[in-house]
């Protein structure tokens, strides 16, 4: 009884808490760097932007750094973190498998292959009006997902082990293909390698404009079906008995999640563990209800990636550590810690 009420309180408190964390982390990320900003300066730039007069005058160079370098980077980091975390939550719910995330299932590798192929072919950035790299990343991710899903499928069930094994196998194969392409990358080698490591360097408003609509569309699609995701935790057949058109919903959810992954991977390369750790952590706090799990995972994912990206940007300054390395360094031990506390894990501890 007490347990339930505590959870309810947490559900109400978690939104303002995460929003506060997001604002704090974002403000810190903007202010920290080779050119530091005080909160007053940040405030002044924003006031000026909104057309209000302010007492403080800021050099145009500093203003440019803030608006054209730091801001897009923070927004992009937030969007990528949110997309990765939400897609992880959706994959885990969809597959009823705690190990599922875009990284383990191979969608990331597929998206990477698509993106690298697009880079090497040298398709123009605005190909088809949406950008060739994200488009190819999406196609690669979606194709991989369908492939892994079909490989693991036994009748109507997608059992855990075959899914993971198929994901690992396909992921390894695609990674090899990415390496192969990289080998022949020649003058584009640097671009490709740095992209694969996963980083948000070179974030621009253009990238934000390309990435965010995809991510939002993906998130909207997944959130649209949050009730179905809840019911699907009870198994596909139960969800069917509750009036859900399983095959249709599953495809839509896979497409929505892949869209988010593709959007994230195409702009920032491969960033692991955000999609794995964040939803698990949220489930520990507020339970498995996707109505809250999806938005709070998005918020925490954004907070986490903005924070780790800022760390990567500043820890060995003036050089930059790709954020993918940091999330893996932090995420893997954290995930192991969560696994050790398995009894408290919000679902899938039936092996106990």
């Amino acid at each position, binding site marked *: *009884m007490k*347990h*339930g*009420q505590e959870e309810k309180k947490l559900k109400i408190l978690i939104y303002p808490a995460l929003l506060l964390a997001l604002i704090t982390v974002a403000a810190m990320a903007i202010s920290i760097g080779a050119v530091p900003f005080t909160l007053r300066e940040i405030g002044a730039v924003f006031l000026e932007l909104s057309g209000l007069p302010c007492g403080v005058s800021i050099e145009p160079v500093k203003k440019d750094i803030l608006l054209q370098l730091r801001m897009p980077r923070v927004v992009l980091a937030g969007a990528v973190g949110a997309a990765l975390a939400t897609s992880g939550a959706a994959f885990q719910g969809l597959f*009823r498998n705690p190990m599922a995330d875009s990284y383990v299932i191979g969608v990331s590798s597929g998206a990477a292959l698509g993106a690298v192929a697009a880079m090497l072919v040298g398709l123009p950035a605005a190909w088809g009006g949406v950008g060739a790299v994200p488009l190819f990343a999406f196609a690669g991710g979606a194709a991989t997902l369908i492939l892994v899903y079909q490989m693991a499928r036994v009748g109507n069930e997608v059992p855990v082990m075959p899914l993971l094994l198929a994901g690992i196998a396909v992921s390894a194969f695609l990674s090899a293909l990415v390496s192969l392409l990289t080998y022949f990358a020649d003058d584009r080698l640097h671009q490709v390698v740095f992209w694969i490591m996963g980083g948000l360097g070179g974030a621009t408003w253009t990238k934000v404009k390309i990435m965010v609509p995809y991510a939002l569309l993906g998130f909207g699609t997944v959130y*649209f079906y949050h*009730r179905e995701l*809840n*019911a699907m*935790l*009870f*198994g596909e*057949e*139960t969800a*069917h*008995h*509750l*009036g*859900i*058109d*399983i095959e249709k919903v599953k495809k839509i959810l896979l497409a929505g999640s892949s869209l988010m992954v593709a959007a994230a991977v195409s702009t920032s390369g491969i960033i692991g563990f955000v999609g794995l750790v964040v939803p698990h952590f949220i*489930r520990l706090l507020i*339970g*498995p*209800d996707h109505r809250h799990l999806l938005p709070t995972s998005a918020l925490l994912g954004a907070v986490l990636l903005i924070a780790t990206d800022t760390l990567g940007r500043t820890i060995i300054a003036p050089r930059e550590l790709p954020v993918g390395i940091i999330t893996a360094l932090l995420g893997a031990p954290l995930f192991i810690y969560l696994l050790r506390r398995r009894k408290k894990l*919000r*679902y*899938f*501890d*039936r092996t106990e």
Partner: protein
Amino acid sequence: MSIQLTVHDLTLQYESHPILDRLQFEISRGQRVALLGANGAGKTTLLRCISKALKPTAGAILLEKRDLESLSPRELAQTMAVVPQETRTDFDFTVEETVLMGRLPYLKRFTPEGDDEKSIARRAMAMTGVSHLAKRSIATLSGGEKQRVIIARALCQEPQILLLDEPTANLDLGYQHSLLELITGLNREKGITIIAAIHDLNLAARFFDRMLLLSSGRVLAAGTAEEVIAPGPIKTAYGVDALIYRHPLAGCLQVSVRNNTDDTKTKQPPIHLIGGGEEALPVMEYLRRQGYPLSIGPVTPEDSSYRFAAFYNLPVIEVPPFSPVSDRAHRAHLELIKKAALTVVPPIPFGIGNLRNLEAVETALEQGSPVAILSHALDQVWDFTGGEAGQILERLKSKGAQLLGDRSQITALLERK
């Protein structure tokens, strides 16, 4: 009663092997139908076809004359709810959240569950007796509690038909009965048609009013318990020899599988028992369990001792009711006593009809056959012969019959010999 569900020529093949083979039956509104059949007979497959979780290879299922194929999952979920055999609940939804999911087929997207929905859920929880668990995590519940929660969720769908797959399979005795009573209540109070696959024929006979016996994907028998629970169909469906009888208390049909062990293949010495009356049963049951080959004295076919002998395929002398033991039966009785290493007189009532059995014991005792009398046969006044039976028992005692206080002493007596 109007026809609610029509199954027409339903066939389902799996890798060209028919699981369901041209099934044909109808179910009327408000019936309680038990789907019976051995493992692999197609019960679960049939339920999954009816709930549209499986697509049949051929044939059709009509719900109120509408083809199931033409119904959307949402429409179907508003008419039919399913309680699966086992529900995976390895995550922390509360009972209330789980039950509320039963409203999914009615909810518009993004419209939050309103007070109407919540009060329907509350009523469903009250009806299945899980209100006090509302805030608990479903992962922490026992199997019986969980089944009730899943039934509450099914009720939340306000269905006209409730499908249950082995609802009692994982439940203990108490939960089995309370669950079936709950389902019967829902059927009577709300008129919900119940279709349940069930393994336990005795529970089926007691709680359901129509049976459908499947065998190799076909309907072997359908109708009332009397029509379906019969030795023939049960032999075909389950491959066992069944004995059908009325439950002595509940009055419904019951099934027991005939004993197939060969009681003659034992190293223990044979024992003959004077049967007749309920009091002989515990003694016979005990001795058989100890591995003694038994023969049973002259009894009428209605007697529990006779049924015992028939069940275990033991030698028994049958006599017509309400009449004295004939000469022929008397001679046969003497034969059995002579073959036995010991003759046991259990604490049974004696009247004019079976007095001759005691006389046979006396004759045999005089000729050297060992006899044991369970002592409370003497203490109790079960003598309906005006004292004659008591006198014979006294004479048996004086002529060397062993007087035993308890059935367990029979073993010791035989070991001493």
